[in-house]
């Protein structure tokens, strides 16, 4: 194991590599993707906030910084990470609130508010990293609006460390909602519930949470705003839900946090899938999968499904979606590809991009696919 506390440590480690590395922050997502291999490159000590400028809405941090620590600092200025990073630690048997920002970026996470504010990839403005030749480099910039050169920041998000260790991240931050309210529509079928959620999504209410839970047969909707506007928006929302009773529920934010974090699956032994799908196809797909435990977020655009030893890549693709096996036992992960196999032309491109950053396949080898 090599522990790094600064970028020079990472450069030295890569230049002196004798074997491939598994890049680790807090280690809360080691159960995500194919089973990791390689010597541990520990970035947990490469942590801390480098700069935070609330007036510019810009934050620069080191990758090992814990997400809750960042959120606490932002909250002092009534700001937040717009992509609403969920805590997946407990889903993988780790304690809560341990995940690092580097891990959140590498896995391109996002919570329920992604429907309004986008995913991690929409928030990373720039970064520093070390490539497979042991060279430190930067991509992007430290301002909100920048099109100078290739947007390498996007590639880093969701690369699961396969393109190399990140050593510094610059993120845009957002104002925190002054208040929010959650309305629940009960006793509604999936079909009717999702139609309602799509109707809200197509209105200018800018909902920041649109979920459906089949077990309770309930659709839940989160709206943000200052006190008076929020009250008016809730009236508009009730109009929009015409014909359906809606109740305001307390603790709605916590409920959306739980859904984003996969909390309903924590105490189960199920494999956990997340399926991104065109939202109007969500019900059809969910019916076909018939998972023993499932729910939908982002107005149907994200399905969480718990199954046992079933490969969901094909049904997802059939409905224009894309499934990722988020959590499963090692044996299952060896049998069922966590990331859907790519068509040949796309796979060739993926491998060429991997080689452009990591020609010797030093970083998280095989974490996504063979050779990547």
């Amino acid at each position, binding site marked *: 194991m090599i522990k790094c506390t600064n970028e020079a440590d990472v450069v030295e480690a890569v230049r002196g590599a004798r074997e491939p590395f598994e890049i680790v922050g807090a280690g809360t997502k080691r159960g995500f993707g194919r089973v990791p291999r390689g010597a541990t490159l520990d970035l947990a000590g490469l942590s801390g906030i480098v700069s935070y*400028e*609330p*007036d*510019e*809405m810009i934050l620069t941090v080191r990758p090992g910084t814990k997400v809750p620590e960042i959120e606490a600092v932002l909250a002092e200025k009534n*700001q937040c990470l717009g992509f609403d990073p969920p805590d997946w630690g407990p889903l993988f048997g780790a304690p809560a609130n341990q995940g690092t920002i580097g891990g959140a970026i590498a896995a391109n996470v996002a919570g329920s508010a992604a429907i309004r504010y*986008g995913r991690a990839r*929409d928030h990373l403005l720039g970064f520093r990293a070390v490539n497979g*030749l042991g*060279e430190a480099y*930067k*991509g992007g*910039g430290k*301002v*909100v*609006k*920048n*099109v*100078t*050169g*290739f*947007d*390498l*920041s996007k*590639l880093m998000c969701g*690369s699961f460390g*396969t*393109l190399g260790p990140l050593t510094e991240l610059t993120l845009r931050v*957002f*104002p*925190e909602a*002054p208040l929010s309210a959650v309305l629940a529509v009960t006793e509604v079928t999936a079909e009717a519930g999702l139609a309602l959620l*799509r109707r809200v*999504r*197509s209105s*200018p209410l800018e909902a920041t949470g649109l979920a459906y839970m089949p077990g309770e047969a309930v659709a839940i909707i989160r709206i943000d705003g200052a006190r*008076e*506007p929020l009250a008016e*928006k809730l009236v508009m929302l009730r109009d929009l839900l015409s014909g359906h009773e809606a109740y305001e529920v307390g603790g709605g934010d916590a409920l959306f946090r739980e859904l984003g974090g996969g909390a309903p699956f924590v105490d189960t032994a199920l494999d956990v899938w997340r399926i991104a*799908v*065109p*939202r*109007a196809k969500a019900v059809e797909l969910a019916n076909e999968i018939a998972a023993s435990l499932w729910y939908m977020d982002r107005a149907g655009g994200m399905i969480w499904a718990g199954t046992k030893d079933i490969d969901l890549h094909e049904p997802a693709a059939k409905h224009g979606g*894309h*499934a*990722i096996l988020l959590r499963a036992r090692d044996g299952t992960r060896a049998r069922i590809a966590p*990331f*859907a196999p790519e068509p040949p*032309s796309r796979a060739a491109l993926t491998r*060429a*991009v991997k*080689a*452009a950053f990591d*020609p*010797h*396949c030093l970083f998280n*080898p095989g974490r*996504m696919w*063979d050779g*990547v």
Partner: protein
Amino acid sequence: MQLAPSDPDILSRRADIVARLRGLVPDGVVADEAGLAAFDGDALTAYRQAALVCVLPKTKEQVSAVLALASETGVPIVPRGAGTSLSGGALPRGDGILLSLTRMNRILDIDYENGWVIAEPGVTNLSITRAVEGRGFYYAPDPSSQIACTIGGNVAENSGGIHCLKYGLTTNNLLGVELALAGGALVRLSQLDGGLDLLGVVAGSEGLLGVVVEATLRILPKPPVTRTLLAAFRSVPAAGQCVAQIIAAGIVPAAMEFLDKRCIAAVEDYCAPGYPRDAEGVLIIDLDGIEADVRDAVARVSDIANAAGAHQLREATDERERARLWAGRKAAFPAMGRLAPDMLCMDGTIPRRALPEVLARMAAMSEAYGLGFCNVFHAGDGNLHPLIIFDVMKEGELARAEEFGAEILRLCVAVGGVLTGEHGVGVEKRDLMPTMFSEADLAQQQRLKCAFDGAGLFNPGKVFPTLSACVERGHMHVKSGRLPFPNLPRF
């Protein structure tokens, strides 16, 4: 900036290349001098160059076939939409095929339930909104050329617009593309994919990675209410303070534009939008959303502007006055254009706090270069558009204007900003890339270029000051079999 000399070998094969293109796209090849003159540049008007030949495919299959021919014959490809690039992104090459996509101009699908429009690359930006506004939707990115510029060009340049502070750039509103790769293979990239975010890196790649033959765009419900405020300040720092406090208060305006006093004078002379001439700067602020949110935001922004020392603050009372307030901002180009025959529009981004310093230093540069200029500024996101006026017919003025512009951009980088916020690097800022990126930074970007386009045929001469052969960029070790870690398992 020097244009690359044409490859004589390619020029000698011109007749054959033209004939083969006619075989692929019989009704869409332009090869005569007069015809090519119509395509000899884009909105970076200082540079003109006739293409070897221009081809206008109507289908993605034809695009594929053209790219296959380019690969086979080793001829560069310059993709082109409407030719509105301000950075020379679509500037032709004398030894390159100009691939114009404007005939691929169909909207293929409108899906309100899923919230998307699927369009061919030659569809104009504004026509996406036109196609969906009847149902209360719109397409958010709104570059100022939106009436003409195409979606394919928007993806290539990752275009912004005045509303991108709140609604993001093209990349944030692009759900997927079908991309024609070097050699002509087609690949689909989507935001739903779980693999590497290749879509994200294609957006803004300035035609260096592939050719977009189809794009899926997110449409949003149109905010029902927009209200517009004008706040005038007697000092630039006070205006800057106002912007910072609006942001700090958690208000995200749909647009927040700053015009400096030179720009105010120019547009008042041109179209009299009613900006106070005694101001050092004015802010024009759009707040949009539902009525209740907008009412709340207007009240808070007004309080902030007054506290920051605005000597004039007014809200447009009706749609006509709103249009008038914006007319001044939108007339900045023609208003400055009246003062001199030629104009350079620069496009750096700076941290907002640096605005007073940057404006002061630009005024000093203007004196030193003996060239007039003014500033419009997307104040919300720090994107600065200095307009430099000059006369290309006067000996040395183009070079002086370019050097003035370059010095501004170097200043943007020095204060923590970037070379371009939305116009792209193109040929215009190509030689400035090393001021922002180290050799290692640029080498990494070029390795990515090589992963998509090993032969370097897509838009060569753009973005990178020197594009090394791909074997020099890190693949060499692998190819020559001299692996530094021969015993590593490589799965």
